[in-house]
């Protein structure tokens, strides 16, 4: 990679090189035209037993390590952390190329570790923490899950009750977290805890990284409405965490949390696109003519896939031009959850009874996984209602609700 020492490769050159490299380590994805065979899964949330989750995670880790070790991961990170110091949007350029290859699908714990937690550590961590955590997380030797929501702290996340009490050089954590993806395979959990119950709720919060194998950590799967299990609840019973694993200053945890949440919101722009494409392929392959209504609905979904991709390209364009993306970066999640709903509605029209009763036919009943999974994304990562409030207050600058 000597030529990169002199500077940043042109985007087209970079894409060509990425394509060439991918060709040496992965097989091209089978082209279109094999409608009716292969996997017909359109699951929104992975649905695995613990054993399957571990197996798949190991497979993805192997791929991620190959990428990292050969200089095709952590692209915009400093070289000190194994990156290449490229502009952030080179990651999107790489992804566009990778999409043409048969590489393992990354379950949520991977983007959470690499794109949400690692940047928060880079922003808030001490030099020692960055040295200890960044390389292993970017290489996915360590995987980090989010210990955020609680039963009484959902949209109102700052109401967390999980307590952390100082004990010399350590903290002792007690509490109960819910809706954690990847808790069974994660080695670290990022826990949002209350360290001072006597101050304003946003001021009494501190964030810690907790070893998931520490004594007192118990993980129990949650069965969601799809019937499968993709999330967990995590009990923290007298878990000891050294002060050196505290992320950011004591009492500043809300700001640390917000930086993770912002990254999560901006990371959701391509949500739902794969399944929308699938639904349109279904419309194109239907063994009967579309009705006028179906055709209109399909055209509308087609337009949404175009627009959602264009919004992504506009975000890229802003980054390329060295500007902070504007509102286009914030609307992505709301736009995406609507795409997911419209996908369900179109498929229901197209399949009729074979969506709801399993005839064994390829690509029909499998859509129930999308139908039942899609509502989850209007709740996870900030509900649609919270997203609207954020847009109204932070982008449009409308006055906040009076505090009670």
């Amino acid at each position, binding site marked *: 990679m000597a030529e990169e020492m002199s500077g940043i490769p042109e985007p087209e050159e970079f894409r060509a090189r990425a394509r060439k490299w991918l060709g040496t380590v992965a097989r091209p994805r089978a082209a279109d035209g094999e409608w009716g065979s292969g996997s017909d899964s359109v699951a929104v949330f992975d649905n695995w037993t613990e054993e399957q989750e571990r197996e798949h995670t190991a497979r993805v880790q192997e791929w991620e390590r190959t990428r990292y070790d050969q200089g095709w991961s952590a692209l915009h990170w400093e070289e000190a952390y194994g990156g290449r110091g490229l502009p952030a*949007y080179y990651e999107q350029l790489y992804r566009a190329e990778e999409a043409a290859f048969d590489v393992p699908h990354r379950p949520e714990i991977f983007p959470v570790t690499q794109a949400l937690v690692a940047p928060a550590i880079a922003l808030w961590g001490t030099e020692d923490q960055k040295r200890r955590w960044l390389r292993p997380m970017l290489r996915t030797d360590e995987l980090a899950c989010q210990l955020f929501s609680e039963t009484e702290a959902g949209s109102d996340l700052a109401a967390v009750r999980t307590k952390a009490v100082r004990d010399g050089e350590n903290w002792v954590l007690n509490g109960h977290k819910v809706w954690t993806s990847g808790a069974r395979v994660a080695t670290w959990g990022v826990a949002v805890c209350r360290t001072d119950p006597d101050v304003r709720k946003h001021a009494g919060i501190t964030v810690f990284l907790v070893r998931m194998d520490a004594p007192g950590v118990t993980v129990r799967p949650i069965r969601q409405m799809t019937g499968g299990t993709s999330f967990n609840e995590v009990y923290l019973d007298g878990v000891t965490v050294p002060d050196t694993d505290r992320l950011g200053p004591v009492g500043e945890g809300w700001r640390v949390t917000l930086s993770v949440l912002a990254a999560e919101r901006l990371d959701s722009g391509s949500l739902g696109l794969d399944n929308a*494409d699938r639904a*349109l392929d279904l*419309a*194109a392959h*239907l063994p*009967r*003519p*579309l*009705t*006028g209504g179906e*055709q*209109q609905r*399909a*055209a*509308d979904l*087609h*337009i949404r*896939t*175009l*627009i959602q*991709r*264009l*919004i992504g*390209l*506009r975000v*890229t*364009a*802003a980054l*390329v*031009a060295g500007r902070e993306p504007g*509102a*286009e970066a914030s*609307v992505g999640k*709301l*736009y995406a959850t609507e795409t997911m709903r419209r996908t369900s509605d179109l498929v229901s029209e197209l399949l009729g009874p074979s969506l709801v009763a399993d005839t064994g036919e390829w690509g029909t009943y499998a859509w129930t996984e999308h139908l039942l999974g899609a509502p989850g994304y209007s709740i996870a990562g900030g509900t649609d*209602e919270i*997203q*609207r*409030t954020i*847009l*109204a*207050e932070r*982008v*449009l*600058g*409308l*006055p*906040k*609700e*009076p505090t009670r």
Partner: protein
Amino acid sequence: MHPRHPEIAPRLLSETDEQRQLRTVLRDLFRETSSPEDVRKHLATPRGYDEALWSRLAGEIGVHGLAVPEEYGGSGFTFAELAVVLEEVGRALCSAPLLPTVVLAAHALLYSGDRAACEQYLPRIADGALTATVAGFGEGFGDGEPIVTAERGSAGWVLRGRADFVLDGAGADVILVRAATPDGPRLFACEPDPGTCRRTPRRVLDETRRQALVEFRGAPATPVGTAEGAEATVSATVDTGRAALAAEQIGGSGHALDATVEFVAQRHQFGRPIGSFQAVKHRLADVLVALEAARSASAYATACAAVAPEQLPVAASAAAVVCSETFRLATAEYVQLHGGIGFTWEHPAHLYVRRARGAEVLFGTADRHRARLAALAGLALESCSV
């Protein structure tokens, strides 16, 4: 090309520094010359727009010649610069007939490839001396026999027939007409004379965009371009018109959102700004999401009109659907969230409602655009139900 993946360099979807400067200049100019009061005042004049402003736009800023090549007296920029102008025009609701003149007529001439016709008209369009429009293009879906016919007489071609809904039809100096000939549909340029061309202004919902019934009664006309190229010229012209209209719609929607946000932040009821109520916030957040979608669609259509004509049909129809829907939503909320004051004649909100409702049917309704997109995307199986 996979039509679900826009094949466009991201930088073409974002504004250049030059375009940003142009936008600032125009916004300042329109603030000074095209307030809602100014617009209303000029609607009452015979031509319905500020003719002094028209000259300033053409002369001082060079708006009319932006997308006209230098050889025809323009400045040889691209459609992207013109789209910046149209967005600001739409924001200010400026009633000058730029859409029929510098978008539709000028592009019909350019796409026709007819050098003589371009030389004859484009320099005068570029310097603001001439207004022009198109007639008989229908909704531009390329289906349907021309409603005007052209006959070859001893003194040359003459046109007969009626074309309705002609933008600025009563005022335009030149009309480019799609007319039937024995060789198929063909384009003609007609400089209307009251003796052979009767022009009746229609009463219109949106007075900022005048329309007329034009009756050709043996009106002399000159062919423009070839018969073979005529339908492609018409189709590309209307798609370019759609891209232009989308930019206007973005401007109007942007105004509606900004004005409403400003209003709800200062209007107090129940002892607090109404903009602090979640019911109000969430409606405006939905407008913002729609506006960003529309901006994306408009930017794509603009880029295609400028540099990627093969993707223009998809981009233009997608923009027509998305930008029309957004403008309709944004103006509906403009009225609703202003409450009683927004429903008064004096408030400018209804001017935008009228513009939105007028624009959304101008180059084909959303249903027709969806049907066209479905066909382009392989989603239209032959069926009598369509």
